[in-house]
């Protein structure tokens, strides 16, 4: 007697499973088709066309790609994006690891400190932007109030092309709570027995850090590094609101430039070409990170 009637009885168990499987993951597959595959094809189409949204798209061959090399703003935009990423990501890693070490102690009330360090990272980007525009205000902003109080001179944070990126880096450091929590979870996952064994062998604080904590945490450093680069290369909302790319295009990050090319200059073809450029940069960067840093990561259970 077949357990299931009708359709089920004519199919094998594995066929039935496959049908059920695809019904369950169906929404995801459709999502990939609609919101990844089709956009990718549209972007490919746009790359070879010139289109201002109003008149019909015009085929231009490789003109958009050639335009990349002649665009005077692009080197500036790339430089701003790279400088910001390569400064903010490593500093953010170090700072969030430092905070994670601090809150990984057993003292009463530590939960309050964990909350305080984490909170900035959930502040909505728009509110964050307004708050920090005020913090960086040259005359009355809190940072310059402190700097002047300590006898320094006012820093024109958002007016000077040389200070705008440092300002954004300071802001990014305030919001490292997310990676801090990931580090904390990693630290708490290191078995106590390792430290106990090391202590019996006479290892000091520094030796335990160097030979247990850091190697055990290396996969998490790696993870936070990759996520950090992916996020920082796509920074948009904060620069859009705080500096709007200025002063003198010193913070014209790539995504902001894509946004402007598409929605201000209405150069859809060129904007799509810039998107591909961003994609390739992140691909190459991920490749380098995986090849040169990923191979140095220590995994406790390889192949797990």
């Amino acid at each position, binding site marked *: 007697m077949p357990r299931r009637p009708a359709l089920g009885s004519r199919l094998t168990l594995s066929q039935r499973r496959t049908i059920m*499987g695809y019904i369950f993951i169906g929404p*995801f597959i459709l999502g990939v088709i609609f919101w990844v595959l089709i956009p990718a094809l549209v972007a490919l189409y746009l790359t070879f066309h010139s289109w201002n949204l109003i008149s019909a798209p015009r085929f231009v061959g490789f003109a958009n790609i050639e335009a990349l090399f002649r665009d005077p703003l692009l080197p500036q935009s790339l430089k701003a994006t790279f400088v910001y990423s390569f400064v903010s990501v490593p500093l953010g890693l170090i700072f969030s690891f430092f905070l994670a070490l601090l809150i990984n102690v057993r003292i009463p009330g530590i939960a309050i400190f964990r909350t305080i360090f984490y909170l900035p990272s959930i502040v909505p980007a728009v509110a964050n932007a307004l*708050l920090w525009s005020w913090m960086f205000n040259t005359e009355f902003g*809190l940072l310059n109030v402190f700097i002047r109080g300590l006898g320094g001179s006012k820093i024109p944070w958002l007016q000077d092309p040389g200070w705008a990126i440092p300002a954004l880096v300071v802001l990014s450091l305030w919001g490292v709570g997310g990676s801090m929590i990931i580090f904390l*979870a990693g630290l708490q996952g290191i078995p106590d027995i390792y430290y106990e064994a090391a202590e019996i062998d006479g290892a000091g604080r520094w030796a335990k850090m160097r030979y247990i904590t850091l190697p055990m945490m290396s996969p998490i450093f790696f993870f936070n590094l990759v996520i950090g680069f992916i996020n*920082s290369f796509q920074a948009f909302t904060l620069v859009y609101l705080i500096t709007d790319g200025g002063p003198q295009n010193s913070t014209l990050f790539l995504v902001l430039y894509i946004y402007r090319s598409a929605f201000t200059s209405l150069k859809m073809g060129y*904007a799509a070409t810039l998107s591909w450029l961003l994609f390739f940069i992140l691909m190459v960067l991920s490749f380098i990170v995986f090849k040169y840093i990923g191979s140095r990561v220590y995994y406790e259970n390889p192949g797990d």
Partner: protein
Amino acid sequence: MSSMDTASEQAFDVQLAPARDRRGNNDLLWRWLTVITLLVMAAIMLMPFVWLVSSSLKSQVQIFQYPPVWIPDPIRWENYSNALTYKPFGLYLRNTMIIVTLNVVAVVFTSSFCAYGFARIRFWGRDFWFGIVIATLFLPYAITIVPSFIIFSRLGWVDTFLPLVVPQFFGGGAFNIFLLRQFFRTIPEELADAARIDGCTEFGIYWRIMMPLAKPALITVAIFTFLNAWNDLLGPVIYLRSPDNFTVAAGLASFRSVQDVSWDLQLAASTAMILPVIVLFFFSQRYFIKGIVMTGLKG
């Protein structure tokens, strides 16, 4: 095991020689150093919040006073009512809540549905598709901005909530599928087998057994979906044109483009936008932490 491992073991041996002594004093000192550093860092991290609230309650005269005062005198509560009526924030809040609610419903249901398939059904091609899930985790969203806009404008969806809502119904994001799949895999398979023997279908198992058991993970997903939708600016800026359709984030952002909005109002409105997030955080701390740890979400 890698050569790295043996290398660090050898290096470790070298370190064993120096003996420790007077550990007790050293430990106490270290503890105090930690506490002091904690307090200093906490003060630094909290300072912008205190400064924000303080500035948001100042008069226009006092906000431009040097050296600044920390406690406003007089305390101007009316900054808040002025800021929130300067633009129709009631309407913006309504728009935001529509988008947020639809996002949360869409993501919770479709991501758990897909996650069940990945976690509990063994079928041909599953590993391939799960690989695609992982790949889209790393897909930079920024590269689809332009083509997505073209597609949505062709569909006539610009200046509606549809571009901000409909995509969420298709899997609800790789992060959430990944998180829920991990969670589903921790639920004992025997529960599902018992239900199968009783004649329960896969849909029944998903809906009546897995969903109730996965409540903590589902709440985590719901909270992060809420936050993302509440905080999102890029989507509203691209797709919402008429001010009547603005979200809270878009409304607050429009303060920046109007030169005559004074700092006290900008900061009062910012505080008002942060407040619900902080309240949400205090009521659901453990879900936040769980979500962060399980997905590594948010940079």
